């Protein structure tokens, strides 16, 4: 199969621009370095000391020269900064229609979850020509999600979310590395990203044997953890109504306003007291230690699904009815996620 071929070169939507910028910089720098080298080599030959008492020229200042070799690099550097910043913004800002995929890093493996509920370890299957947004957190130390061919890298931090996005442009099999030193088997925290033609990807998805979409899993936890007892879907409950919440501004008891994004919802589950919605009491217990990062992700997906922009449904596989899926709390080890074994691309 074509996607089994290891692809190393650049292969994402931003990598073309990246390569152009990189090699332009290489060219400019090489020319300047060559200029210096030519002066040095020329001097080496031309100005060799011939007599023991010989002296060099005593010129020591040339103001126009000083000004020009201060000013020209300065403006060149401003240009480099500007282009680099533009590229950075492109790398950092995911498009709205990106497939949301969640990543949990731990010593020393990557756990990845598709919105349709497919779970993978150290492997990620994505379609080409379709942006993919990764929302990531770590269970222990800092890791870094790095796919060289896509020219992306983002540190994965414990206890908060970071994100990155990419759009693969060529089908193939690409290295996934952990780029932030994370302990003994840091160099073993590696995996593969499989970029597939859309139809192959659809086949892979439906072959997946997922136990239900993340949102439906979230709905299950929502009842299992008794969230539903307080968070009624009406405005009469003791707790805020979670419908149409995601992505909306929330007014807090301190008078501040925050946007209900992934990080806010995660914090509100694990540390409810940190931000209290205006008009509500501080009565919610903390779920820290009782709920795994994966379950938090499920709950976020659920809240997204009942939110205003539930664009995730279009990517999920059918079957949103919650099924029996591991009652384990805490870490979902490799054994519980063996579903990836039935994937077409699993080695």
């Amino acid at each position: 199969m074509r996607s089994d071929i290891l692809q190393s070169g650049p292969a994402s939507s931003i990598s073309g621009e990246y390569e152009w910028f990189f090699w332009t910089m290489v060219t400019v720098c090489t020319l300047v370095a060559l200029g210096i080298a030519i002066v040095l080599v020329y001097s080496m030959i031309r100005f060799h000391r011939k007599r023991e008492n010989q002296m060099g020229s005593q010129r020591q200042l040339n103001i126009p020269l000083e000004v020009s070799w201060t000013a020209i690099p300065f403006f060149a550097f401003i240009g480099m900064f500007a282009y680099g910043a533009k590229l950075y913004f492109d790398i950092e800002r995911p498009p709205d229609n990106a497939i949301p995929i969640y990543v949990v890093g731990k010593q020393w493996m990557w756990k990845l979850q598709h919105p349709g509920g497919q779970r993978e370890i150290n492997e990620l299957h994505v379609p080409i020509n379709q942006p993919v947004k990764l929302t990531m957190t770590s269970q222990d130390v800092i890791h870094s999600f790095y796919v060289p061919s896509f020219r992306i890298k983002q540190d994965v931090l414990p206890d908060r979310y970071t994100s990155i996005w990419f759009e693969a442009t060529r089908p193939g099999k690409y290295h996934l590395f952990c780029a932030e030193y994370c302990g003994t088997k840091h160099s073993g925290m590696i995996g593969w990203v499989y970029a597939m033609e859309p139809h192959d990807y659809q086949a892979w998805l439906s072959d997946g044997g997922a136990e239900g979409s993340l949102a439906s899993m979230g709905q299950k936890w929502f009842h299992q953890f008794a969230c539903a007892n307080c968070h009624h879907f009406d405005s009469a409950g003791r707790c805020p109504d979670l419908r149409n919440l995601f992505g909306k501004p929330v007014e807090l008891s301190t008078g501040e306003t925050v946007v209900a994004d992934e990080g806010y919802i995660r914090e509100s589950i694990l540390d409810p007291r940190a931000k209290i919605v205006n008009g509500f009491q501080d009565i919610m217990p903390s779920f820290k230690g009782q709920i795994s990062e994966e379950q938090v992700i499920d709950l976020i997906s659920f809240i997204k699904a009942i939110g205003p922009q539930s664009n995730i449904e279009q990517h999920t596989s059918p079957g949103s009815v919650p099924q029996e899926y591991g009652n384990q709390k805490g870490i979902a080890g490799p054994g519980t996620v063996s579903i990836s074994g039935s994937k077409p691309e699993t080695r």
Partner: protein
Amino acid sequence: MQPALALVPKNYLTEKQGLLSWFFTTDHKRIAILYTASITALFFLGGFFALLMRLELLTPETNLVQPETYNKLFTMHGIIMVWFFLIPSIPNTLGNFFIPMVIGAKDLAFPKINLLSWYIFMLGAAVTIYALFRGGVDTGWTFYTPFSTSYSTTYVVAAAIGILIAGFSSIMTGLNFIATIHKMRAPGLTWYRLPIFVWSMYATSLILVLATPVLAVTLLMVAVERLAQVGIFDPALGGDPVLFQHMFWFYSHPAVYIMVLPGMAVVSEIIPAFARKPLFGYKAVAYSSMAIAVLGFLVWGHHMFVAGTSVYSAMTFSLLSYFVAVPSAIKVFNWTATIYGGALSWDTPMLYAVGFIGLFTIGGMTGLFLAALGLDVHVTDTYFVIAHFHYIMVGGTVMAYLGGVHYWWPKISGKMYPEGLAKLSAMAVFLGFNLTFFPQFILGYLGMPRRYAAYPPEFHMLNVLSTAGASILGVGYVMPLCYLLWSWKYGKEAEPNPWRATGLEWKTPSPPPTHNFEITPVVTWNAYDYKAQQEELQLVP
């Protein structure tokens, strides 16, 4: 000529005898020798770790050492090379020896503090080496939390305390230099008559004094967090690991300039001496040192572009990082202009200095890639970064250090080094260095992450090249150690001013007497005034 022994004037080496006269000396020149001996030993220890790492990376699999050991090797290599070799290297050896001599002083302002700083440095080194022998540390020299505070099972606290102690030695040295340069200059030696060596050392000292305490307190917090099991940087207890990175790099980025500014200081002395030409753009070079010292504090965030800081903060730091590149560029252009039109003699120090210009230029230019936000995302935390900072610190600082040692060797030891062997070793260092580290730029661009004990097989070829280069580099470093020690005893006697360089240190015998100058000199000339020098020596027609 062998004059009667009684007639030979006493110098700093012969005035007092016995081991105790060294351990209780307050003479800046002797303390410099003590420092040189210590850091040379530590350099070869750190180099030994590097050698083991390169051997392990000869094959893609882990077969020489296990990943646990490999992680400890790169950690100890980093810790020893950064804090126990590079930071004290030029300031505490050549700086200690020559700052008072160049400014015409009898000694540093606080000689006892100078000696104390050596003892504190040795204590810090001893504590760190204790950590090493108890089984090492595996956090990387950066001690990133929460790995260092909560997950590592190695001797993190001992290593952190060792570095903290050595930090106080840095602060004392910096303080001593600043006070000395301000208050102890010879009559007539105004700021604009000072050699650039002094300007750069002054800039270095400012960074030492202002940045090192932040490292000390950061490591203190890491140690407290680890010992007391409280959360300062631990997110599980409300801390923020990124704050650790801010505090660490607030020190550790300026620390890069602590390492390279003294290198620039040395090169700015060597080039005029061997071109017999005043340093081109004296004021531009002097101000650029100060600009680096100040701007160097504004750019630490460029180590954290993918660490989870805000995009706007990253943009600020990126722009400021480009600003600090300007003074470095100015220096390179001015050195090149000094060489152009000189009366060049290609002795060993000059070879090292020109090597410095070349390698520092490559290192600096690849820094432009890392400061560009979008480009940094791909190449940060890969071998590209490794190659970049080795070009600055090894290609820059170590080349300059070796150049400076050769340049001033006649003054320090009173003997000439063997020129042929020295040229050979300079070539070996230059070639070996490039063969070691240039392939690493390519490795980084291809995406090989740093700190990997094992790597995918497609990176094999370049790693073999790198290891091959490292073996040449190793030989290049051992050679000077051997022939310099040999020449100390058997070398040809050196004249007071073998290079006919300007500078007050050359106006006193080699080796200098304990108080440096029999009569305190009065300076009426500018730095690098070769014309006046030649006239004085009655060499000019």
